[in-house]
């Protein structure tokens, strides 16, 4: 190694060490200052009344108190009891997650403390990793003692979900159960504690929220859809505004753009749009009122244009951890109770392609969450249909019982549709089947898998022709527009990932319609001649391959000749020398 290289390396190392030291010093000083600013946690010195963490969104409600419930329970005490009890559940859940009793003595006493501590320790000793979460509580007060120190209540239909993994991390059980809990709480040292808690058979269904009637809402009749009493076949498109797709749609919501686009969709002879509600952008558990208003505005405008809307919920929500289930519940509650009476909604699509989360999360957990959400959705909005946008016909065979319309996406060769559809029909013999997404990108570059508009047209015609022969309730293309920008969170960063996503529309970036746009209307003429096989050879990728092959071959020939010439020269030199 040269001296100069060695010097450079040493200098680089010295600079790196100096930078790390400077960063450590600044960070340490900042932490020290922050520590002085904060001081001690009050809870470390005082007996703080327990509070429910602000990010805990468990559903809580109270039934009317029993007629003879002893002393009248004042609102402050009621809130304290509620907070203690909810926090007690949270501490149990956290203890299971931690694998050791954690903070239980603040919320439990007597036999309950002993039992719950033993249960947590037993699970840990058995090598089980348990994740548990309670999502809903409905209290009924039976007794509040005269001196205000004893409470007996029933917590009705407590919904508890758990995931059990063995020591190797393998899923053992994913379940959601409902049960009543008879509970006795005592006031000790000024704090309420759970003294007894006995699990009992659930006493009945939750009180159904009062949803407004929706006479114009879509219904199902056998394997068909009906809207306004008439048969309805979906002919639609998945929709984002062209200039503001995905994460820019709702923050830059523009009613004029929506009106223009819905008119254009209507003009294409379509009757349905499928839209997406991004979970985080809508505020998570605390839904942003402005976003709600935007969604309401879009639905109103769609209704004016006589378009139906499939609203896809929880878009880009990838967190299936049990402790955060209630967060999603609150968004669901807010959205569904707000729009339960809106007849422009064809169906609530509970999640887009949730099966793609299987590998990361585990299919049983994905299914358990979807079942949970579907059950809640029916209680919040009994008027509208439910569906789930599975990524393939095979995936759509899951949770058939949980939905009204079985929706599948299809991006495979059209010839494979019949087989996948038949298998799905066998799995869901009595449910309407909807093709929620299909399409073909017209991104055609030097990368493989490029397609031309002619191929897109042929694919649309082929797929729709095959679908006509099946008993599907309709189709929705992906998507209305080609987009200039695709967020990295959607497909990735590489050009071969974003390119196809950007050019899957039926309307080009310049606003003109691709030929496929004319093939989506119910009565469209699908008699499109297939693209000849040789045409693919004219795609940039194949031209590149051909060119590369020619260059490569030429190079090889040239190299071979040069080597041969050199060899001959060497041989001639040898002969001369000899």
């Amino acid at each position, binding site marked *: 190694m040269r001296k100069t290289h060695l010097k450079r390396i040493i200098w680089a190392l010295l600079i790196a060490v100096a930078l790390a030291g400077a960063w450590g010093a600044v960070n340490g000083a900042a932490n020290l200052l922050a520590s002085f600013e904060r001081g001690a946690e009050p809870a470390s010195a005082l007996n703080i009344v327990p509070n429910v963490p602000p990010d805990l969104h468990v559903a809580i409600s109270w039934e009317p108190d029993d007629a003879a419930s002893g002393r009248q329970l004042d609102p402050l005490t009621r809130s304290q009891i509620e907070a203690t009890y909810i926090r007690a559940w949270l501490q149990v859940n956290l203890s299971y997650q931690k694998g050791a009793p954690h903070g239980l003595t603040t919320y439990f006493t007597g*036999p309950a403390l002993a039992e719950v501590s*033993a249960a947590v320790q037993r*699970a840990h000793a058995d090598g089980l990793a348990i994740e548990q979460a309670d999502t809903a509580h409905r209290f009924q007060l039976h*007794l509040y003692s005269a001196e205000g120190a004893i409470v007996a209540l029933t917590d009705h239909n407590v919904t508890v979900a758990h995931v059990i993994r063995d020591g190797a991390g393998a899923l053992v*059980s994913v*379940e959601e159960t409902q049960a009543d809990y008879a509970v*006795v709480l005592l006031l000790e040292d000024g704090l309420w504690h759970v003294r007894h808690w006995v*699990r009992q058979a659930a006493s009945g269904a939750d009180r159904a929220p009062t949803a407004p009637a929706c006479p114009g809402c879509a219904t199902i009749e056998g394997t068909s859809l009906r809207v306004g009493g008439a048969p309805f076949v979906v002919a639609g498109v998945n929709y984002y505004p062209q200039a503001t797709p995905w994460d820019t749609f709702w923050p830059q919501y523009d009613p004029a753009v929506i009106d223009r686009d819905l008119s254009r969709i209507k003009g294409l002879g379509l009757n349905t749009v499928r839209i997406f509600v991004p979970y985080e952008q809508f505020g998570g558990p605390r839904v942003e009122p402005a976003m709600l208003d935007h969604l309401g505005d879009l639905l109103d405008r769609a209704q004016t244009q006589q378009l139906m809307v499939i609203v896809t919920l929880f878009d880009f929500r990838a967190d299936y951890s049990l402790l955060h289930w209630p967060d999603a519940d609150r968004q669901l509650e807010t959205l569904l109770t707000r729009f339960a009476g809106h007849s422009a909604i064809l169906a609530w699509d509970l999640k887009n392609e949730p099966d793609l989360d299987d590998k990361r999360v585990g299919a049983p957990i994905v299914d358990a969450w979807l079942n949970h959400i579907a059950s809640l959705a029916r209680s919040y909005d009994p008027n509208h249909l439910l569906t789930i946008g599975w990524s393939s016909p095979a995936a759509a065979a899951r949770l058939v019982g949980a939905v009204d319309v079985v929706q599948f996406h299809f991006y495979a060769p059209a010839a494979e549709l019949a087989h996948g559809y038949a298998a799905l029909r066998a799995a869901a013999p009595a449910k309407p089947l909807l093709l929620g997404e299909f399409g073909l990108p017209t991104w055609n570059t030097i990368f*493989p898998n490029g397609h031309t508009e002619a191929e897109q047209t042929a694919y649309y015609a082929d797929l729709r022709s095959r679908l006509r022969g099946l008993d599907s309730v309709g189709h929705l293309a992906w998507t209305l527009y080609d987009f200039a920008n695709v967020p990295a969170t959607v497909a990735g960063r590489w050009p071969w990932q974003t390119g196809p996503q950007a050019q899957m529309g039926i309307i080009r970036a310049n606003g003109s319609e691709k030929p496929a746009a004319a093939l989506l209307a119910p009565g469209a003429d699908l008699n499109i001649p297939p693209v000849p096989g040789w045409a693919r050879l004219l795609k940039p990728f194949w031209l590149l391959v051909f060119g590369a092959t020619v260059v490569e071959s030429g190079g090889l020939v040239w190299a071979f000749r040069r080597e041969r010439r050199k060899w001959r020269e060497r041989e001639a030199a040898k002969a001369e020398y000899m």
Partner: protein
Amino acid sequence: MPRCGLVYVSLLVVLLALATGCASRTPAHGPTLAGALVVRAPAALAAGEPVTVVAERADAPDGLLVTLVAQGGYSLLLYRSPFQMGRAEFRLPAEDTQVAGLVTLVAHADTAEGHAELTISPGPPVDPVTPLVGPHALIADGAHWGSAIAIPFDAFGNPVAEGTPLQFHIRRPDGATETLGAAVTHLLAWRRLASGTRAGRTTLSVTAGEAHGPEANLIETPGWPASFTLSASPSGLPADGRQLVTLRTAPLLDAYGNQMLDGTLVTFAAETPGGQPRLIPAYTIDGVAEAQLQAPTESGVVTVRATLYGVESAPLQIVFAPGPAVGTIPLTARIDQASGSVSIEAGPLLAGLGQFVPEGTPAHFTLVGPDGVTQQREVMALGGRATLTLPLGELLAGEYQIRVAVGAGAGQTRLSVP
């Protein structure tokens, strides 16, 4: 470097093919067992009893492992057993069935799943059954109430079964006993405990079957006092600013004749002739409160009231006679030419019993001169006499009329100044 370029191009093609999804996928294997499992378990079980749960599926391959999750009130227990001849047995030991309540049993084998429910019943109540009484003090007016609560539990600490009967045994302050029956509902049994009308200690105990426990006590206290009167003794004292009158309430009783508890605060409020209020706190002893009221210095009527718990007595009026001296006071005036002064002596100043008035009692002298001008002088009594000395030079020649007043006593005389 043509050969290097060739290699780079080839590598690029391979990388592109891999990155754009040309890699083959491994087909997934289907489940060995799917669908439903039959889970058999008794519907009910006594706490602390072992139980066998069976998962069945006729077409299950031998050796396929079944997991059984038992979700109880507190615990999530996991058991494993392989299928043999279509059956997998799980023996839940006694220590796993000690917590009463609903247990949800979920069996999994591959993707097959089955459910069952088992209710573990608590055993009979055991010692001790502790009565919980609250509040610990009640007003004995027949209207106020407390609660008597018991949470009987079995040998494993489970609250006993709904409907389990128990009895609250109660002994009232008057010795009367009663038994109130109750049944366990929502994990506990309770009765409203209405107060009686006799103040004192009420004692409770609870029995549940053969189980007993300690006693609990409840104090029934007197309620608000009924109307009451005041008395004062002695009466007829002079307003000498010295003597004390004992104020006393009549026995303080509530509407049911219960005497106020010792130490109950009673506040006496006295309004003197001069309009000055006096507040005198006192505490009851044996149902009566006493306070001492000092005689005012001015004669007249003092009105006294007493209050406790907002209840006010009837007013008591105490008349303080003038004082302290009574009768005619001898008055002697002498001129001492040698010293050039006039000495006026009043005395003896005698009180009601013929004793000297207290030292320092003020004597008010009034002198009316020959020109009709009146002079007032005050002198303190000393040794039963009050002596006023005036310089002779300050007096006009002529006849003076001199009067003295000490409380209710008075005297007069004349003096000729040369």
